[in-house]
């Protein structure tokens, strides 16, 4: 091929190349600039040829061009070098360049030929994958410091998207979306953004965040303008929003087990480009992992709380079990001392043994109560329901108690039979629990009132004492497992009587509640569906 023919082929190849091809002298003056280079950098060949190539080099990389030219001058080639360049419109792009020395006929290096490819999208995707992978690892662990985790999420997602990132968590009552983390590359905007949300908290039913929270769907506002958001923005935020210099915004829900547990927002400032659907998908990807982290943190706190409660319960249970054991052991030891010293008669031996027997029974009852708790937790406490006259059942329980403890005054008011469907042994357990609580907290000599009556479709049992009452803040807790209103004062018990009672009543389709009569004390009210009402349990085939 003749040299001029080869030249023509080469020129055609350069002109039609998909990759940007450019050449420069050793002092950086552009000599070749193909049309792909025009598209990549935004400068035309006319604008570049004869001028320094340094105009496309970012100002923060001042050493790069001299270094490259020095290596080329030594005759070296530079292969797939990844760096950044600045387009005519000011946008930064990631490029991969390969640079070769150009020699004259005598073999002297006279310039550099460069092939450049735009790898912005590739690099962004890679960076985002890294962010997501790093977040996945960090978020998959259980954390007790969710705030710190969300803060690092805001930083990482902000770096990947070149934007500010906000993480909202709903307040306990669900009315507000509180700020859990907030980060913006511009510190002034970050401060203003935080001030806006602190002075005027985001309501859960207002603004873009509220809309995303309610609809559980991500939103992209590619070209942000005040007019676009004015209709539904928080009015108090309108004075701040222009100063936040928003170019483009995204809000996505953080979901866990089908519920929205948070909202992530991203906002980008000029001169950066608008967010794309791809950016929205990326932030949603991050938000899905954040949802898991929020859920994990909640489970972690719950697990710790459960462990703490269990520890406390074990301490209380141990205390309760040690008391009858002390009586059994001390009673037996005292009896032996007296038998050895011969100072004891038959009657006293009999009384001591009866006491030891009674304390052993008390231990058995405590263990039964503990087993009830584990049966309830495992859902294995089963009723054997039959028709029961609640009035007769309670009269029996009260009479039996009066026979054993004639010193306690229990006033029973029963007007008529109250027929329900229930397990008589379990119902008896409930009434015994309520009665012993009432007696335990009553001042000496104060009567305990027990009332059985019929209401609309339900039977009602009320046990009322004249003790110190239950503080209102404890009302919802007294039925919780292991809960005791005052642990420093010993009234006996393990904090499970009301829990077990409530569960038994619920198995009967009924309810149990606390009332505070105006003239003092506590009134516990059990409501059970009457026989024949739809809420009543089915009668068992086994008994009754």
């Amino acid at each position, binding site marked *: 091929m003749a040299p001029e023919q080869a030249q023509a082929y080469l020129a055609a190849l350069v002109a039609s190349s998909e990759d940007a091809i450019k050449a420069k002298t050793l002092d950086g003056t552009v000599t070749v600039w193909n049309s792909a280079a025009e598209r990549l950098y935004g400068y035309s060949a006319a604008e570049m040829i004869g001028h320094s190539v340094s105009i496309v080099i970012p100002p923060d990389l001042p050493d790069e061009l001299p270094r490259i030219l020095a290596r080329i001058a030594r005759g070296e080639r530079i292969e797939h070098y990844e760096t950044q360049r600045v387009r005519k419109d000011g946008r930064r792009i990631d490029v991969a360049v390969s640079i070769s020395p150009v020699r004259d006929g005598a073999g002297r290096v006279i310039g550099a030929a460069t092939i450049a490819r735009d790898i912005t999208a590739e690099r962004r995707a890679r960076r985002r994958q890294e962010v997501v992978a790093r977040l996945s690892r960090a978020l998959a662990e259980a954390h007790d410091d969710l705030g710190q985790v969300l803060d690092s999420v805001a930083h990482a997602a902000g770096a990947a998207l070149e934007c500010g990132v906000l993480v909202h968590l709903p307040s306990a009552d669900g009315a507000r979306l509180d700020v859990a983390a907030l980060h913006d590359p511009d510190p002034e905007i970050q401060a203003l953004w935080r001030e806006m949300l602190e002075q005027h908290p985001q309501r859960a039913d207002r603004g873009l965040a509220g809309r995303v929270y309610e609809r559980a769907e991500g939103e992209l506002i590619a070209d942000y303008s005040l007019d676009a958001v004015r209709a539904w923005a928080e009015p108090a935020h309108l004075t701040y929003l222009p100063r936040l210099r928003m170019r483009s915004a995204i809000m996505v829900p953080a979901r866990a087990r089908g519920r929205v547990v948070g909202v992530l927002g991203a906002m980008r400032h000029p001169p950066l480009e608008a967010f794309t659907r791809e950016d929205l998908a990326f932030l949603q990807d991050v938000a899905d992992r954040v949802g898991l982290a929020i859920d994990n943190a909640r489970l972690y706190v719950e697990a710790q709380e459960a462990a703490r409660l269990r520890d406390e319960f074990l*301490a209380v249970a*141990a*205390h*309760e079990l*040690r*008391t009858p*054991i*002390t*009586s059994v*052991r*001390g*009673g037996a*030891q*005292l009896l032996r*001392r*007296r038998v050895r*010293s011969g*100072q004891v008669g038959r009657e006293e031996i009999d009384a001591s043994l009866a*006491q030891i027997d009674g*304390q052993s029974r008390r231990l058995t009852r405590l263990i039964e109560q503990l087993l009830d708790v584990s049966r309830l937790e495992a859902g294995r406490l089963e009723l054997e329901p039959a028709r029961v006259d609640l009035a007769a059942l309670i009269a029996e329980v009260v009479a039996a108690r009066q026979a054993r403890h004639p010193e306690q005054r229990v006033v029973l008011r029963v007007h008529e039979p109250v027929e329900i469907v229930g397990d008589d042994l379990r119902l008896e357990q409930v009434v015994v629990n309520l009665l012993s609580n009432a007696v*335990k907290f009553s001042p000496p000599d104060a009567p305990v009132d027990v009332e059985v009556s019929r209401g609309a479709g339900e039977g009602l049992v009320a046990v009322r004492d004249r003790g110190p009452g239950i503080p209102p803040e404890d009302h919802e807790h007294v039925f919780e497992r292991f809960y005791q209103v005052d642990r*420093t*004062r*010993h*009234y006996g018990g393990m904090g499970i009587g009301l829990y077990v009672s409530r569960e038994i009543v619920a198995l009967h389709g009924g309810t149990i509640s606390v009332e505070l009569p105006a003239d003092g004390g506590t009134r516990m009210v059990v409501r059970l569906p009457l026989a024949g009402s739809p809420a009543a349990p089915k009668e068992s085939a086994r008994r009754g």
Partner: protein
Amino acid sequence: VAETGPVLVIEDDATIAGIVAGVLGDEGYQVVVARDGVEALERIAAQAPRLILLDMRMPRVNGWEFAAAYRARTEVPAPIVVITAGRDASQKAREIGADAYIAKPFDIDDVVSLVARLVGAP
């Protein structure tokens, strides 16, 4: 400290109170029993004890409250022995500045020797 006063047993469990009072009575000590801190302060007002055996968790006035009230109104308080079925009997004893502690369940021989060590023979 009253050299001759009774040993005051403050314990809300009647059976345990009876056992402690029984064994100390057999040894020749004079024993008074109170069901809780309120009753204990009444008994003390009637007769100063030489030693107090104190249960911590009781209804009404508990062990902590009793110890504070007793020391506030007594110039030369009697030694106090904490008796508890809870965790950390020694810690509870330190908390109220007690002289000794007995963890439930206990051996009655240990109660007898501790009382003898603190106040001597009956």
